[in-house]
């Protein structure tokens, strides 16, 4: 059964904590550090819908706590609202390693917009050169265009 805190749910799946919902004043993220295994904490953030300024502060506290305790945090499936915070407020990045994240794409052919998952490890070389991986439109099969400014959207990777 997932644990619920305010609008956030936390569910262990193997060695991964799956986080869903809103990160806000009720999130209490620092408590997640107690669930680290061998000084390693893996968070799956694909279900996070929202983070507000108090959630950002909570997130920064969790990152700082991890650094003090020598816990390595791996972030998987980081959603766009979190990427925006990682880009806007440098302190949110901490020492965490992002291994996959969602990014906005748009199809010129049919106008479809999607948030698509990018494997940051497999595409590390291209991302370092601010080159988003090619993606295909699920609706019309055309090649999709990255739908943001690469120098801004990928700045969180240049920690």
């Amino acid at each position, binding site marked *: 059964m997932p644990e619920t805190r305010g609008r956030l749910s936390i569910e262990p799946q193997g060695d991964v904590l799956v986080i869903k919902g809103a990160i*806000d004043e009720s999130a209490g993220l620092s408590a997640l550090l107690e669930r680290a295994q061998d000084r390693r904490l893996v968070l799956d953030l694909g279900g996070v819908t929202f*983070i507000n*300024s108090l959630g950002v*502060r909570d997130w920064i506290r969790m990152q700082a706590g991890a650094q003090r305790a020598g816990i390595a945090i791996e972030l998987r499936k980081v959603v766009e*609202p979190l990427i925006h915070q990682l880009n*806007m407020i440098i302190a949110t990045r901490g020492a965490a390693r992002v291994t996959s994240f969602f990014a906005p794409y748009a199809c010129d052919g049919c106008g479809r917009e999607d948030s698509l998952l990018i494997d940051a490890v497999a595409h590390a070389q291209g991302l370092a050169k601010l080159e988003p991986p090619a993606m295909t439109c699920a609706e019309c099969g055309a090649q999709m265009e990255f739908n943001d400014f690469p120098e*801004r959207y990928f700045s969180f990777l240049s920690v």
Partner: protein
Amino acid sequence: MRAPSILIVHPDHKTQRTVQRVLGATGYRIDVADDLGQGVRLLAHLEPVLVVVDGSAMSSPSVKQFFTVAKARGAESCMTLVGAAQLEQMSRILGLGAVTNLLVHPMPVLGEELTITAQKLLRSDLFGAEKYLLWGTKLNATTLTQASQRSQLVGELAEQVRGRGQSARVASMAMLVTDELLSNAVHNAPIDAAGRRYRAELARDGELALDVRHQVALRWGCDGRYLAIEVTDLFGSLDRATILRALVQNDVKTSGSGAGMGIALTYRSCDHLVFNLAPGKRTEVIALIDVRFPHSERVPASSYNVFVERS
């Protein structure tokens, strides 16, 4: 004594003419200067109600002198136009803390934003998101009577925005903007006679009944160009200097009940943020999210206005 006028400072003659045509429609006489030095010289003979300065002038060492002289000559407000070529000036402009109205657009001038801003300043008719939306746009209205309603309202708004065909990104921006504005209005706006913000340190997740004085109004609507979110409190305790400082805030407060980042995050999560202030009476904040263009075709910076009702 000369008649009230509008002074435009812009180095490009073609843009000067465009701005002149747009603002000439207000009926005020328009004076034009190519640079700040010429602007200061003109100000000696003018009493402008409004000065409009191109963003490129913001890197000039004489910009502060120009603002001081303009204010001394009675200019109510300074409006700065920032085109795509001047985006690198953004942090400097924000850091000045003197620009009360900043319009950002890929073209040198966006007529509608310029006209709305000028008309609001000149007529002193500030309030209402309707001014930014096309005729006939319906605004949904809700009143927050319990602090705990905030999360429910934010969730409902996001669902309705998605239900009307907007992208997940627009819904996500709308959620953040609405949450921060409501939170500010409930906890930071209330102020007592001694100037104490008596709800600022209350836990944000605590329950709080809001009587008529403390209730917060939320209105939102979309005209296919902008999604507008408007939040109003009845205290009018937010002031211009606080807003200009808050817009450039980059650090989260480490203690206290608030994070001190609400206005900055709101500004960076919308395309245009408008503050309408009636000191001691009400504060209305309107966030506009552009829903027309793909994100990659927009300018990576946002406009803002701080309007203060004349007493």
